[in-house]
């Protein structure tokens, strides 16, 4: 892997850019690997990268039915934050946030992590109580979060409407300054490049159609559209399709898959300097470096794998955006799209061993998995390599739905859905 640097740019400029190499190779699948990762999204590629770099496991294949980073990694709104209520969540999301800081340097790939601040608005007394509780809980866990008055919120984000005459007036906000955004595609590409350079095989257009198990129940490999590929360890990181893959191994999951939509506006000059979220009116917005407003909507109410959603969901979100930012009422929207998110009953992810020996699962990130990409891959690689969870992901088992030891962020309102 040739290092990217200002000298590389100068060198290539002198010789007509003929020396750039492919960022990752596309080898033919081998008959057998030590580890197979199902799903080449951010989480799957990060898992492969940390298996190679931290644990020295390089005989790894990442299988992807479509193209690399073409699922939810390329469809999310790129928001990064760690201001979750519970200790377990704070642990895993802040682990990720610490890895974001310095990820570009580690990968030698600009993931454009921009800690521009994530502001969450309070519109009523209940919101104030909930958000202040989050501020205090976060601080006890060593996570930065602070309370802003409406005037301070407007100072931090000038286009925000804090008029008392608004239908849902802004009564305050919490601000995590280390939160922000990153370039989602670059995260997948950077991890893919780093993993490929260390010998990981990234195999696109290779759909897993079955999971093979030995008579004793242990995993022996996967059937794919490109033939059988053997492995004694298989990690399922398939987002909305995780339950489909797990069913192939005979494991029924506490998951439901829903369409989640997002949209972007035409590009404009810098106007929104941070990320603004509101759970009460249900909208969140940031501005990409290209200038597009990136707006996240909610999930549809029914199980679907269609990667599209209802227009009324987008309309509901845009109503809220116009309420918060009257300046955008005549902004034109360019594109909208949907991704399929796998949601657990407690809205916390599952990163764990499964009842099937050799089968591991990293799923249930629901509507907010992008922010966790580095941390998720890091601890999941540990879980696979050691056949034992990392202390950070130890609480995120499948068994918690039997024992009742849930991580109930669903009721904690840090999650915007």
């Amino acid at each position, binding site marked *: 892997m040739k290092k990217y640097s200002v000298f590389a740019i100068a060198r290539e400029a002198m010789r007509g850019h003929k020396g750039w190499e492919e960022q990752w190779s596309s080898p033919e699948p081998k008959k057998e690997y030590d580890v197979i990762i199902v799903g080449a999204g951010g989480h799957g590629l990060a898992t492969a990268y940390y298996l190679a770099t931290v644990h020295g496991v390089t005989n790894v294949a990442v299988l992807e039915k479509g193209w690399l980073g073409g699922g939810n990694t390329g469809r999310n709104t790129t928001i990064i934050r760690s201001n979750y209520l519970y200790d377990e969540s704070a642990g895993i999301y802040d682990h990720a946030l610490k890895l974001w800081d310095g990820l570009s340097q580690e990968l030698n790939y600009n993931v454009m992590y921009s800690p521009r601040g994530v502001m969450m608005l309070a519109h009523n007394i209940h919101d104030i109580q909930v958000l202040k509780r989050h501020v205090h809980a976060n601080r006890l866990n060593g996570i930065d979060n602070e309370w802003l008055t409406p005037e301070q919120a407007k100072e931090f984000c000038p286009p925000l409407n804090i008029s008392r005459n608004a239908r849902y007036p802004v009564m305050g906000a919490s601000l995590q300054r280390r939160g922000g955004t990153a370039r989602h595609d670059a995260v997948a590409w950077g991890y893919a490049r780093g993993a490929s350079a260390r010998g990981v095989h990234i195999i696109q257009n290779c759909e897993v159609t079955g999971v093979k198990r030995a008579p004793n129940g242990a995993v022996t490999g996967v059937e794919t559209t490109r033939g059988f590929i053997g492995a004694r360890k298989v990690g399922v990181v398939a987002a909305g*399709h995780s*339950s*489909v893959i797990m069913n192939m191994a005979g494991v*029924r*999951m*506490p*998951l*439901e*898959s829903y369409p989640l939509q997002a949209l972007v506006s035409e590009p404009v000059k810098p106007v929104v300097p941070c990320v603004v979220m509101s759970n009460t009116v249900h909208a969140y917005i940031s501005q990409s470096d290209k200038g597009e407003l990136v707006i996240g909507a909610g999930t549809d*109410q*029914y*199980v*679907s*794998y*269609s990667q*599209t959603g*209802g*227009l*009324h969901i987008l309309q509901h979100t845009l109503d809220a955006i116009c309420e918060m930012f009257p300046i955008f009422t005549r902004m034109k929207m360019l594109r909208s799209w949907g991704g399929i998110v*796998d949601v657990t*009953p407690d809205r916390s992810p599952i990163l764990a061993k499964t009842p099937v020996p050799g089968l591991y699962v990293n799923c249930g990130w629901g509507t907010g998995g992008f922010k966790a990409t580095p941390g998720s891959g890091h601890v999941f690689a540990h879980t696979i390599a050691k056949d034992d969870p990392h202390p950070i992901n130890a609480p995120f088992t499948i068994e918690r*739905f*039997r*024992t*009742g030891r849930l991580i109930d962020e669903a009721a904690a309102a840090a999650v915007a859905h």
Partner: protein
Amino acid sequence: MLLIRCPYCEEERPELEFRNAGEAHIARSPNIASESDDDFEKFFFIRSNPKGIIYERWRHMHGCARFFNAVRDTVSDRFLMTYKAGEPKPVKLPGAAK
């Protein structure tokens, strides 16, 4: 937006009038307190989440307010049929490809 046929009102109405109420034909045990942890997990948390034909409950919230069941393809979001609550799970599906 989906168009959903309410089997009680006997007409197609826009999705905004309805609330999805999750997977259908999951029976609650009459002795819920004596359920084992395994059985309670299956009843309460585990879902089939199929890519394909799903049997699900809907409620005509802003119409007759009654619950009913529907059969839908989760890939195309096309409804195959709807039927009244309490009716048995249909064996034959009209126009089902698979």
